């Protein structure tokens, strides 16, 4: 039984993650599960005046625009390293499933491993990697 689905999204590039977003919404509908949208931003940006909480409006806009009304959804903004915050959030909200996208392996991904692979490695629950 899937009750809570964690959907980590880079809200600023939502179009790139369309596939995983659609999949997560679909799964949430099927299972009647709650969707928890997690937006992880860097702790420190080069533009110093931009604080993590300044990204809140982007997330709110995303929730209004992309997440349909018939799906029960919550959202959360976190500052930190993506894969670490995703795993932490999964534990915190007791997610049964993480749905996330995986971008095409680029050079840096070969060297460092994509976020998805680190999450798969460390997640406390099942992970659905959308390709």
């Amino acid at each position, binding site marked *: 039984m899937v009750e809570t689905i964690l959907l980590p999204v880079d809200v600023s590039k939502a179009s790139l993650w369309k596939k995983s977003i659609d999949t997560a919404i679909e799964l949430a509908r099927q299972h009647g599960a709650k969707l928890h949208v997690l937006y992880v931003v860097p*702790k*420190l*940006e*080069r*533009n*110093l*005046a*931009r*604080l*993590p*909480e*300044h990204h*809140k409006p982007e997330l709110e806009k995303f929730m209004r625009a992309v997440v349909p009304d018939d799906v029960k959804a919550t959202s959360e*903004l*976190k*500052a930190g390293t993506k894969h670490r915050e995703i795993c932490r959030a999964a534990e915190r909200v007791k997610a049964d499933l993480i749905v996330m996208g995986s971008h095409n392996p680029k050079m840096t991904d070969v060297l460092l491993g994509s976020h998805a692979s680190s999450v798969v490695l460390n997640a406390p629950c099942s992970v659905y990697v959308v390709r």
Partner: protein
Amino acid sequence: MSEATSEPDVDFPAETDYEVGQDNIRPFGLDIHNPVFVVSSLVVVGFVLYALVFQAQASEFFGWLRPWLTNQLDWLFMSAANIFVVLCLALIVSPYGSIRLGGEAAEPEFSYAGWFAMLFAAGMGIGLMFFGVLEPMTHALYPPLGVDPADEAAARSIGMAATIFHWGLHPWAIYAIVALALAFFAYNRGLPLTIRSAFFPLLGDRVWGWPGHVIDTLAVFATLFGLATSLGFGAEQATAGLDYLFGIAQTDTTRVVLIVVITAIALVSVVAGIDAGVKRLSELNMILAFALMLFVIIAGPTWLILSGALDSAIAYAQALPALSNFVGREDQAFMHGWTTFYWAWWISWSPFVGMFIARVSRGRTVREFLICVLLIPTAVSILWMNAFGGTAISQYFDQGLTGVAQAVSDWTPELALFLMAENLPFTAIVSAVGIVLVLVFFITSSDSGSLVIDTITSGGKTDAPVVQRIFWCIFEGLVAITLLIGGGLAALQAAAIATGFPFAIVLLVMCVAIVLGLREERRILVAARTAAAE
């Protein structure tokens, strides 16, 4: 965002209707703060034109301005810096020390290790490369405070102490004041992270009007000219290094080409927005700088450096009162040529470094913040100066090698680092690493400097168009070039002092604002606690 860092649940009276970017104008797709951008860019353009068109006159003017400013304003800079140190120390022991930046419930965003690394990074720069070898040697040969140069032990000791004085508590107190003000008013009062916000308790909503414009414009000038001074030092040193290694002639043309190339690289990173690239570059530079220091410690007189670090910390503490005093000093040349210039230079850097420190210190208490910001970079400076300067001093006094001493008496400061490296193993590699360090510091400072200036001149907007950053990046390079041509290092120093002067007054007023803000915060917190207890 986690609940921990959200707004404090007590009501604070920093109510303002100001909205970021409300006074901005948007010509040609720009998004700029009308008076601040227009005034500061016009003045900078005018300045560059004047210095280029009337080169001879400008050169003479700067040559006169530098000593005039330090002679006239020594008391202001020195008493201001002393006030900052005393205020920082007083706040550490005062009850205000327990106030947390970001509100009662805020948690530190960065671990201690990460935070320390970033404080350390903020304090590193071209200056340490330029002065690390040169300054201790200079003060050992021409000691301040009337120490007899013939008394070797005393001269060596005061040489290190005087250098640490210029790189220790005073500069970091200057940065700490700016950073504390910015952090407090941004995190505890929810105002934009920009210089004028610190004046809210004194000016109220007027900080969004012309008094605020003046403050921000002064911050822009200070940052621009402080940065140009560092870039000038960097250009001098890198050119000297290239000459030393590859025999490339040290002419103005070489320096100008160097500044143009470096600015172009910084420009590429600004245009392409390769944030990760610059971040890695600066991390790499930290590692490289640390490795260079370790190498010098190991290859140089290891025991002397390590024991010297402790000795010179003690010598520094002993000489601190005498060096900070500006009344009835005999060693005017030292006080004006070095101390006053340094204080002005640090003050001109303070908006830049202060903003960075403020940004990484949310969630720390005032006490924790001040202790760490004051002590950790000071400790690093002590070690750095002992490694580089201590090695040079030992080469001269213990081994009879006169290279660096010669550079001091001929006054070719940009050569000092390379002449010290000459007597260490792997000279060529060490010199090359030195040049790379200077160049990378150059790129990262120019890049982040244009970011900070852009943030200020776009009225706190965080997503201003990239064109504006390009503009500031180019002008930093241009200012450095014009100053170098129009009078060399003396012109750079004159510019840093000239812009440091008004900003010193801004900082003094900022001290009052900090105390007022902290007092109010404490009053409210105590009231809230008593109310909760009843």
